[in-house]
């Protein structure tokens, strides 16, 4: 029996109003961290195939990266397995010097050949996580030559096409596909030439601070301390992630001290825990953006004036960000995430029904029209969609909402089969303007046959060669100041040309922790490392 979420929320909000007053008992052991988390999207632990942020939070604790992105200053790269790295003067090659003496959990010695093999594997398998590498020009054919170990501690990556090597370094520091695998251990478990893909779906072969003990899908994942970790053994003996989807259950368990960290809680529950004595709320901005997009393939939205009316004047940016987005996102309207040097101040688009009506009248649509809004049936997407539906109605646009699962909604978008969509995406893992621009705006070939469904620019059928060219030249600009200027130009062009996608908010990830958990630093790229976390009681 399914009951409307709203009804459930109201009933439970009333019933649980006293839950914040539940006395704490601090039941989890001192040396264990218990995290309540939804594992609904965790389908594989294979770094070549795993999608979504959930797996990144596991991978960065089980595996090591060559480099790490500083969680407190994402433009700063920190050494990981690589002690140092050097970019060739022409920007077409990066050479890494790896630490010696690092051991995998199996006891095997980690060498540069393991790193080269791990990256080649991603390209050869061509699964979900091959995408960023393919965008740099790597292929299954050229990777053998392009990524190579010249000795036990030296890894050389030759870039097949001109790009900004900083962007590649950020991918190495943030993408789950950039972890280093224990080649021997994986190949011991190879079946039918799958390079260990089936085995790695549920196992791990890393050198990180924690060893994966067990993962029972949608039940529990357990990791224990790796005493031979090259930095120093982590302070926690065990980390347990328990699959929990009900926000209210998370709240009760957090209140009782049966879990230490809760993720994915609903806004009313986060609000309640904020004022509870034993818990605190941590929010971290992610590079991902919430957006409203229209299909420029649709004759109505092919007209710039109609796009401008809807995307710039009929979205209640202030209202949505004030009433719907707390703990989900923060006000942001640029296609480049907040916090980067290149990001321009907000353009200040506001709900202006009169201006929208005028633009619609100029486009010959004064009487409005009927349309549909596709939306993932969960918060905050549905709230944004209903808000948009009401503001569109003010200009005579009658929009019906088509809710669905993420699979259905983004599937339709990938098939270019939508009119308006409320969604979330846009890369943003790498703290570089190109990460978002490539995902959201760039569209090198607008033909249906191109099927560039990984680009949201293609999905929205918006094609602007000038904008493409600006994005490309920004990436290739080697002078930092000039590059910042180039990305400012891209944002101005985005402002003037009104592409078919409009960011409304930048994603925020909120976790609630018990106050005795120390050194928990949420990472903007989801690589939240637990090696320094401990409990102070």
């Amino acid at each position, binding site marked *: *029996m399914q*009951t409307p979420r709203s009804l*459930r929320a109201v*009933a*439970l909000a009333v*019933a*649980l109003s006293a*839950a914040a007053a*539940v006395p704490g*008992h601090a039941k989890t*052991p001192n040396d264990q961290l*218990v995290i*309540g988390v939804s594992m*609904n999207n965790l*389908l*594989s632990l294979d770094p070549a*195939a795993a*999608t979504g942020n959930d797996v990144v939070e596991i991978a960065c604790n089980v595996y090591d990266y060559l480099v790490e992105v500083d969680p407190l200053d994402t433009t700063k790269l920190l050494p990981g397995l690589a002690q140092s790295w050097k970019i060739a003067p022409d920007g077409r090659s990066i050479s890494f010097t790896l630490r010696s003496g690092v051991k995998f959990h199996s006891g095997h010695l980690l060498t540069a050949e393991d790193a080269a093999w791990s990256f080649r594997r991603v390209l050869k398998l*061509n*699964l*979900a996580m*091959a*995408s960023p590498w*393919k965008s740099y020009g790597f292929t299954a054919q050229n990777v053998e030559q392009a990524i190579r170990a010249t000795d036990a501690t030296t890894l050389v990556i030759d870039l097949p096409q001109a790009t900004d090597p900083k962007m590649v370094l950020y991918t190495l520091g943030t993408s789950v596909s950039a972890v280093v695998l224990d080649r021997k251990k994986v190949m011991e478990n190879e079946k039918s030439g799958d390079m260990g893909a*089936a085995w790695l779906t*549920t196992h791990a072969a890393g050198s990180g601070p924690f060893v994966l*003990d067990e993962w*029972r*899908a*949608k039940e*529990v994942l*357990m990791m224990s301390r790796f005493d031979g970790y090259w930095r120093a053994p982590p302070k926690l003996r065990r980390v*347990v992630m*328990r*699959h*929990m989807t*009900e926000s*209210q*259950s998370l709240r*009760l*368990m957090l*209140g*009782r001290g*049966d879990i230490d960290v809760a993720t994915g809680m609903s806004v009313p529950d986060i609000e309640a825990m904020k004022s509870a004595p034993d818990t605190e709320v941590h929010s971290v901005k992610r590079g991902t953006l919430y957006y409203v997009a229209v299909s420029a393939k649709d004759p109505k939205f092919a007209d710039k004036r109609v796009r401008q009316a809807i995307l710039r004047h009929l979205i209640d940016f202030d209202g949505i960000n004030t009433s719907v987005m707390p703990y989900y996102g923060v006000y942001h309207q640029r296609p480049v995430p907040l916090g980067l040097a290149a990001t321009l101040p907000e353009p200040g688009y506001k709900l202006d029904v009169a201006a929208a009506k005028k633009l619609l009248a100029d486009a010959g649509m004064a009487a409005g029209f009927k349309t549909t809004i596709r939306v993932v049936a969960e918060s905050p997407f549905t709230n944004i969609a209903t808000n948009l539906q009401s503001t569109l109605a003010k200009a005579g646009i009658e929009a019906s909402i088509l809710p*669905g*699962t*993420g*699979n*259905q909604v*983004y*599937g339709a*978008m*990938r098939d270019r089969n939508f009119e308006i969509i409320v969604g979330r*995406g846009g*890369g943003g893992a790498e703290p570089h303007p190109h990460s978002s621009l490539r*995902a959201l705006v760039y569209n090198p070939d607008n033909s249906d046959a191109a*099927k*560039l*469904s*990984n680009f949201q620019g293609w999905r929205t059928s918006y094609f602007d060669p000038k904008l493409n060219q600006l994005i490309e030249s920004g990436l290739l600009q080697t002078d930092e100041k000039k590059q910042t200027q180039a990305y400012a130009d891209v944002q101005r062009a985005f402002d003037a040309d009104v592409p078919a996608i409009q960011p409304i908010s930048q994603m925020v990830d909120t976790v609630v922790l018990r106050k005795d958990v120390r050194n928990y630093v949420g990472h903007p790229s989801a690589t939240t490392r637990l090696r320094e976390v401990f409990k102070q009681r």
Partner: protein
Amino acid sequence: MSATSISAPLPRRPGLRARQIRLLGQRLFSVLLTLLGLLLLTFMIGRVMPLDPVLSIVGPDADRSTYEQVYRQLGLDRPLVVQFGYYLRDLLHGDFGNALLTGHPVTEDLARVLPATIELATLAIIVGTLLGVPLGVFAATQRGRIGDHAVRLVSLLGHSTPIFWFGMMGLLVFYAWLGWAGGAGRVDLAYDGLVKPMTGFLLLDSALAGEWEVLGSALKHVTLPACILGLHSMAYISRMTRSFMLSQLSQEYILTARVKGLPERTVIWRHAFRNILVQLLTIVALAYGGLLEGAVLIETVFGWPGFGQYLTSSLLLGDMNAVMGSVLVVGVVFVALNLLSDALYQVFDPRTRQ
């Protein structure tokens, strides 16, 4: 004629065994046909559902070549009939395929999640039956009086209140406030993995292993969700029991029994109740089947890694191997419960043996 008066053993007739074997064959054929139809229907629904299993695997941002590669790997480029044929062929070899959700063979997953739900549902149906039957009988004997109204009210509340609400309130009171019940999961994390699964039934496995602390923890975790599910079943069972009893209590043989001066307890339990046992069995069996497949909300609230959650998640992902395997299990469970209830009919109602 009173049903109690026809309980004399019937003489065995010649050719009865041959007839029984033929009937058994017919029944078996009909069961297999039902299961095949169920699979075909599920397969077709799965293929026309607007859910893309490839997208579930590769994520929304995968490029074309990756998408097409995984599409082919899943065999989705083959004609539907061929896909179904391959599925049946593998099924006959005991291979349900691998689940996208877990990466494990579906049989392994089912062996893990089914015992968790069976454990919960069995305790729940015991609670529901032990409470529901006496309450229903009591209500029938008190027809129109305050006792009857009270039972009907409890039954109405139990059946119409959303089960997740009971779950949350139960957690709030018995877990958060009183600390009597365990929280989410089948056992406290400290005991997780201590008992090696033999049957998959944690209560049984921990008892067999002599891990009494684990057993205690598992009991603490299962009691609350089982009681809440049981309360829900109790509402249904008591309502049906009342209705069956009322229909029996208005029969002439009950009047005769009372006129004969039999004690009221004998009239109720030995005469009227015995005659509703057959119907009651069907109701309890169906309620049990419903609990096995429909405990998803309570499993969600209590973080219970059971069959309901598995089936629902698989469905939302378009994970057809897991869905087909789960549907087959549900089909088999219902067929088995029907067969069991038919067999018990023969035990309790001699007329069906003719």
